[in-house]
């Protein structure tokens, strides 16, 4: 749907205002229902038995003793989850991740699950299940996994993207290449060439709410599930397919969500809860512990990246190359390819290329984490660009402005850009007071810019006018970042009613058509577009009802400020019909009034941001304190500026945590050492300064209000901005994320030697 023609002159009534959030009171008072807050009569408690080994053959599982324990109602293993995927290897991978089949592939991989009358019984039952493992050699490091000497995890993986296709199985599942131009010619033109290697460690989304679901399968084959998810329709489709249920008979209701950030776009234990419920013929509640969340859900990739950039003395980047090695955990993925697509996206570079290598390691399946794969590649690229600026003696902002992509630039991953905001965010950064503020002792400043694609996808919205003339809106795309407020704003804007007259809910899977999950920053972008459509469809009906009431042609009725008005000089005596009037009379004019919209929201509009960071480093201990942080990002149109600012701040906060302390620590035994918030250190409030934000609005031509997705881009630049700030504070380039105090102190000491 195109941008409204008159957007330039359009004066919004409620869009862009900071209305009260609809879910706020329930969330701060504890009334809101999250995943574990729904219960059913007679429900059982489920627990999962997980592998302590990173890689082993399951020789035998003996559940006989556990089955005999009083209070145990069902036990399942992979034998209870037959392969119904009909050759769909990707679906079989999902099933195999939910429950190990012939082998366990990572520390924490599920091998069996128990449903019992209470947690104590379930725990006792887990201890009675005997698993006979044959331990295999394992690999957890991405570079090690790609070596020919590495233990091979899957014997059916032959590298894609290499000609001829290898005949020997390996952990190297895919190679891809993006870019254009002639690298050799470009590097030949350069006055300065900088070549560096970087590493980033694995991080978790760190959502506060653990995964939880309540599953209830009836003997007649109908089932219900209440679950914390970013996409209940996708959960329904996948669970139904894996368990052999008809999708229409599995009704899934999404709970409120205590954070997802991509980690709740995949199914993990939900098929197990359904299978247990089916076997026990009782409702089953399955809630993960925090340890399980860390060990067995979907963290991001750890990476290893090489970057080479050539530039002229005037700052023109003549050539750029990157090789990116990421992993998908224990299953094939394309995370490195995603990274490669983002590598040079901020810049207009004549000769650029990125080569991706996706690997498989003995770690949990990698899931999306907010702009997945982009922060790591941004870290490597922006540090190298910072070094180029230093080498040629140019201001790093000026260097980026000189090479920034613009409307009409052919991006490194293929498409030609429409109107974009990278140049504007860089200019805003250059002029921001933060950039000129004096720096305290041992404090450095860094800046970096980042990119994310954004996504649109399928969305359904039903808008209903109630008999009292208020509005209900039902959407199937989960609200993870405030989309209910934005949808209410869109409906209110179109209908000409107050924001408070609209109430939005996320409907269950039996109430609407398929909706994609909330990923790719698509929630507000796609749902608000559908809400605009639905409201406009409802207005058509409202006008028809007014026309019928007045017995005049519908073309002579217009909808203005929440009222139907008759057009034409001869109709001056017809008093406008309000929404309330039409709602009240609906029974006599054709029945309930509604507007529907089912769309694929294409052209989400790419998003760019520039961040500025000040970091103080205690050079005797390596401890970093972020003293000031500014996020500047293009939002297209900020429908609700407070939510947009919240997204900017949240992404920066997560990025700062990733940059400084968050990291999966694996022992040489292949076991995760820090599966708890004590030793997996996300920042607490007192670790962060107030994060300043600046919203730029360069309208997306493919949304009626100009909206772009804003949720993911804010996590892209922080790794780079923080590391460059630390480098400027210490004088030592940091090549390894996170920059934990031991790593910084070691780098400072090494530089002194």
């Amino acid at each position, binding site marked *: 749907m195109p941008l409204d023609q008159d957007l330039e002159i359009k004066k919004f009534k409620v869009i862009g205002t900071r209305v009260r959030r609809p879910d706020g009171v329930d969330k701060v008072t504890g009334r809101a229902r999250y995943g574990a807050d729904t219960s059913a009569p007679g429900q059982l408690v489920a627990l999962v038995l997980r592998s302590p080994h990173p890689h082993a053959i399951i020789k035998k599982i003996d559940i006989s003793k556990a089955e005999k324990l009083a209070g145990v109602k069902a036990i399942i293993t992979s034998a209870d989850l037959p392969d119904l995927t009909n050759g769909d290897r990707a679906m079989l991978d999902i099933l195999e991740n939910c429950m190990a089949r012939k082998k366990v592939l990572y520390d924490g991989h599920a091998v069996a699950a128990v449903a019992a009358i209470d947690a104590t019984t379930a725990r006792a039952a887990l201890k009675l299940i005997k698993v006979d493992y044959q331990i295999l050699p394992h690999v957890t490091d991405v570079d090690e996994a790609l070596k020919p000497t590495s233990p091979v995890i899957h014997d059916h993986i032959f590298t894609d993207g290499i000609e001829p296709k290898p005949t020997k199985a390996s952990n190297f599942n895919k190679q891809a290449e993006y870019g254009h131009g002639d690298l050799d010619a470009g590097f030949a033109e350069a006055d300065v060439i900088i070549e560096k290697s970087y590493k980033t460690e694995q991080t978790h989304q760190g959502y506060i709410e653990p995964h939880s679901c309540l599953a209830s399968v009836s003997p007649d084959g109908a089932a219900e599930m209440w679950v914390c998810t970013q996409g209940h329709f996708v959960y329904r489709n996948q669970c139904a397919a894996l368990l052999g249920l008809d999708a229409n008979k599995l009704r899934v209701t999404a709970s409120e969500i205590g954070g997802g950030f991509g980690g709740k776009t995949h199914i993990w234990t939900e098929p197990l809860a359904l299978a247990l419920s089916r076997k026990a013929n009782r409702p089953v509640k399955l809630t993960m512990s925090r340890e399980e969340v860390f060990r067995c859900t979907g963290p991001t990739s750890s990476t290893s990246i090489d970057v080479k950039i050539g530039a002229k003395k005037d700052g023109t980047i003549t050539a750029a190359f990157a090789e990116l090695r990421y992993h998908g955990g224990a299953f094939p993925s394309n995370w490195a390819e995603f990274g490669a697509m983002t590598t040079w996206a901020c810049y207009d570079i004549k000769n650029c290329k990125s080569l991706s290598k996706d690997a498989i390691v003995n770690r949990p399946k990698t899931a999306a984490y907010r702009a997945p794969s982009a922060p790591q590649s941004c870290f490597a690229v922006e540090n190298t660009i910072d070094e180029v600026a230093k080498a040629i003696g140019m201001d790093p902002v000026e260097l980026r402005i000189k090479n920034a992509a613009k409307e009409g630039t052919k991006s490194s991953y293929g498409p030609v850009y429409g109107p974009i905001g990278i140049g504007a965010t860089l200019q805003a950064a250059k002029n921001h007071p933060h950039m000129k503020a004096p720096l305290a002792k041992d404090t450095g400043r860094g800046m970096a810019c980042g990119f994310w694609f954004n996504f649109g996808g399928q969305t359904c919205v039903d808008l209903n006018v109630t008999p009292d003339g208020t509005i209900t809106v039902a959407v199937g795309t989960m609200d993870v970042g405030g989309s209910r407020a934005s949808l209410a704003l869109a409906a209110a804007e179109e209908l000409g009613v107050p924001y408070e007259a609209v109430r939005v809910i996320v409907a269950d899977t039996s109430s609407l058509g398929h909706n994609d999950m909330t990923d790719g920053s698509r929630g507000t972008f796609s749902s608000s577009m559908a809400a605009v459509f639905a409201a406009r469809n409802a207005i058509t009906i409202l006008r028809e009802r007014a026309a019928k009431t007045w017995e005049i042609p519908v073309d002579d009725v217009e909808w203005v400020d929440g009222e139907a008005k008759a057009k034409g000089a001869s109709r001056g005596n017809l008093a406008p019909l309000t929404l309330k009037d039409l709602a009240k009379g609906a029974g006599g004019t054709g029945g309930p009034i509604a507007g529907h919209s089912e769309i694929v929201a294409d052209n989400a509009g790419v998003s760019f941001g520039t961040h500025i960071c000040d970091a103080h480093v205690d050079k005797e201990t390596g*401890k970093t304190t972020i003293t000031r942080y500014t996020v500047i990002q293009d939002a297209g149109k900020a429908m609700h500026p407070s939510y947009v600012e919240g997204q900017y701040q949240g992404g920066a906060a997560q990025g700062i945590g990733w940059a400084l302390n968050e990291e999966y620590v694996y022992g040489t035994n292949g076991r995760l050492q820090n599966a708890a*918030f004590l030793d997996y250190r996300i920042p*607490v409030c*007192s*670790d962060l300064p107030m994060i300043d934000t600046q919203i730029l609005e360069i309208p997306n031509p493919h949304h009626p209000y100009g909206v772009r997705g804003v949720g993911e881009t804010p996590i892209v630049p922080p790794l780079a901005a923080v590391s460059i700030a630390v480098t400027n504070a210490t004088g030592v380039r940091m090549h390894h994320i996170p920059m*934990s*105090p*031991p790593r910084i102190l070691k780098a400072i000491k090494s530089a002194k030697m």
Partner: protein
Amino acid sequence: MRYETPSTAKEAVSLMAKEKGIAYILAGGTDLLVKMKAGMIEPDLVVDIKRVKGMNEIKKGAGGYSIGAAVPCVAILENAAFVKAWPGVADAANLIGSRQVQGRSTMTGNMCNASPAADSVPALVAAGAKVSIAGPKGNRKLAVEDVAAGVGRNNLKKGEIITSIDLPKKAAKSGDAYLRFTPRTEMDIAVVSVGVNLTLDGKGVITKARVALGAVSTTVLLVKEAAKAIIGTKLDDAAKANLAALCSAACKPIDDKRGTIEFRTDVAGVLARRAAETAYARAGGK
């Protein structure tokens, strides 16, 4: 599992002594309940000592302060006279967990849990504190540095419980300090920690010193040689360098998820120097 709430120490001792299964004392519960919830321990008996007479009190006697075993950290922090007398011990209480955790957690529990990284221990060791123990065979006292036997193990015998932590009378012209290193500002656990307690003469020369290091060995270390190195000095640069070097030398740390041997060894010296500077200033030294 049985849950008991005795009203006297004698009763508590008797319950603990008689229990044939796994028995734990519950004070604040900030370690015990977490371990139970995680399935790490499954006690047969939990003896809650919060209702034991006197265990919730901070008393000041002729000998010095006595902190009941069930006194939560916030109660210590809200006792202005105590904070003024022992700012280092108070700093330690103020660093355990977060304010919410401090509302429940006790220094005695922190000590009995016997983590080498326990925040309250180095400060109490530096202060020269002892614990009062009640047991089936009578009462006894033990120096705080002798409570832990190893990681997660303490020297209390079957049926014994700590009833209070007893600090010596605060000496004139003395001051203490506690510093720890954590990557985060709060909700974290010490990677290295140092407690220092100094007494000065009228000229600002250190006459007595105690230095304790946490998280660099299986138990908190009392580093006598480091203390000796600053006694007789006005904490000049050379004394501070000696202190730092001797503290680093005393470390027997491990590489783990929280830090490396190299990092802990280096930072122990840095923190010892900084803590000594604070303690010296608090003692009135210039």
